[in-house]
């Protein structure tokens, strides 16, 4: 299946490019737009991993929700006129060293620590399976999520509304 590998490399390159624009881009709105494309690339990778339900969730929550929230927040706070302002702080070199060190460690761990696995030929439809898991095995975290969401909503409303 060299075609699948080719698609993977294309999607991987696309996602990494988008992520790089997010991290290094000067214009904050363009960074947010790149983030949208990055999220879509991730969703495509999830599909490649037979997780189509999670891909749809990724698009619905991240692209349809979080990025809209981000764009709103950018438009509420940014002084767009000042585009030439410095975008990074003065710890760039130190941070770059930390990030590269982390990356080297992660690559080492993923290539040597984990045996090569081929995986099953095909997963069954995942959505009913996830539903069963969420309602039985993970019933407690599932209910905890609703409390988390309630707390987040209440807190955010208090923070955002204070005039």
């Amino acid at each position, binding site marked *: 299946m060299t075609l699948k590998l080719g698609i993977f490399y294309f999607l991987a390159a696309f996602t990494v490019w988008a992520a790089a624009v997010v991290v290094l881009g000067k214009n904050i709105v363009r960074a947010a737009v790149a983030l949208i494309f990055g999220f879509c690339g991730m969703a495509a990778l999830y599909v490649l991993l037979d997780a*189509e339900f999670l891909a*749809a969730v990724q698009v*619905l929550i991240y*692209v349809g929700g979080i*990025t*809209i929230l981000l*764009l*709103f927040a950018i*438009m509420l706070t940014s002084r767009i006129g000042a585009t030439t302002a410095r975008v990074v702080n003065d710890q760039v070199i130190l941070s770059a060293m930390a990030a590269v060190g982390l990356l080297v460690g992660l690559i080492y761990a993923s290539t040597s620590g984990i045996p090569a696995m081929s995986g099953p030929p095909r997963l069954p439809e995942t959505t009913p399976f996830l539903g069963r898991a969420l309602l039985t095995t993970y019933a407690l975290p599932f209910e905890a999520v609703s409390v988390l969401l309630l707390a987040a909503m209440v807190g955010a409303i208090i923070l955002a509304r204070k005039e």
Partner: protein
Amino acid sequence: MMTFASLVERFYAAMAAWGIPWIVPTLIVMVIVVSVVLAYISVAAMFMIWWERKISAHIQVRYGPMRVGGWHGWAQSIADGIKLLLKEDLIPAGADKVVFVLAPMVVFGATVAAYVTIPWAPGLIVRDLNIGILYMVSISSLVVVGIIMAGWSSNNKYATLGALRSAAQAVSYEVPLVLSLLGPVMIAGTMSMGKLVEAQSGRWFGVLPGWFVFPQIVAFLIYFTCALAECNRLPFDIPEAESELVAGFHVEYSGMRFAMFFLAEYANMFVVSAIATTVFLGGWHGPWIPLPGLPREVAHGLFGLVWFQVKCYFLIFVMMWLRWTLARLRVDQLMAFAWKVLLPISFANLIVTGLVLVLGKQALLYVGGIAILLLAAILLAARPAARTVRVGERT
């Protein structure tokens, strides 16, 4: 139609017999499929634009386009298209050009991608994705992102404000829309569009067709209202209200770039109607007769195709009819309606549906009674108090 699938199979087999690698016939089929869908989108959108002009004209007791092409001005949309093709393309000097150019691509690409899982007729569906309805919902959330991109990048106050309003309205109506789609999903136990249609093949009480609109009438009405809002159709067209915002997010788009937004808007109207038809109105189901000289499946498929189109265009007709009948809502009414009326009702509908499914049909009477009481209580509670608008007050 089953015969389409078998035709494709035969094509693959023939290509394999010739010794051509599988990728070639696969690509050929994909290109043919996507070309057919794009041709359908363009022709249907042009037809809808002409149709809308005729409907609005007849409602206002005038003729509408009559000249281009002879019979009732049928070629008006083609003439409009050629005119837009010839228009100069202007990008404002202060605009963010990259985002400005990307925005129509995002909107149109997402709209085209939604056609992947529309069930046209028995067996005639590009791909029956197993998360079908969720896929539809999530791919259409990309359109909102495209609209924000268009409005923001124009560097125009009207466009920015229109995009913001559009996004706020779309997210507000998205929640009741998704909740209303969940009722049929619970009854059918599947999200795949094809299986949802098949689940409606029976009959209710032996007489009514087994469409989900009958047990889920509340959900259907909520869905249709929200679909109007998602398409920015009147009475929910505050994002592009011409009297206050000129045209909303696409003020600065001209020529072909504007045409792409226009095309996507009408293509989107068809998508929301197709979802309503699939989920609530029984999709391709309808009476059919075996035509002489045609195999059973082909006849069934042809009738299914016709029924699906008839239902979709009926819903589109209702949308256009509403546009010339209702007045535009105020922004605060618009938002309050989504959050304070539609959302509680759709939650109530979800709970009632769940109760009936868990307790069985005999619970229907009790649940129905309680539901009506609950709805009445919610509506009474949500009824806006008499409000005096002071002169000069801004909303």
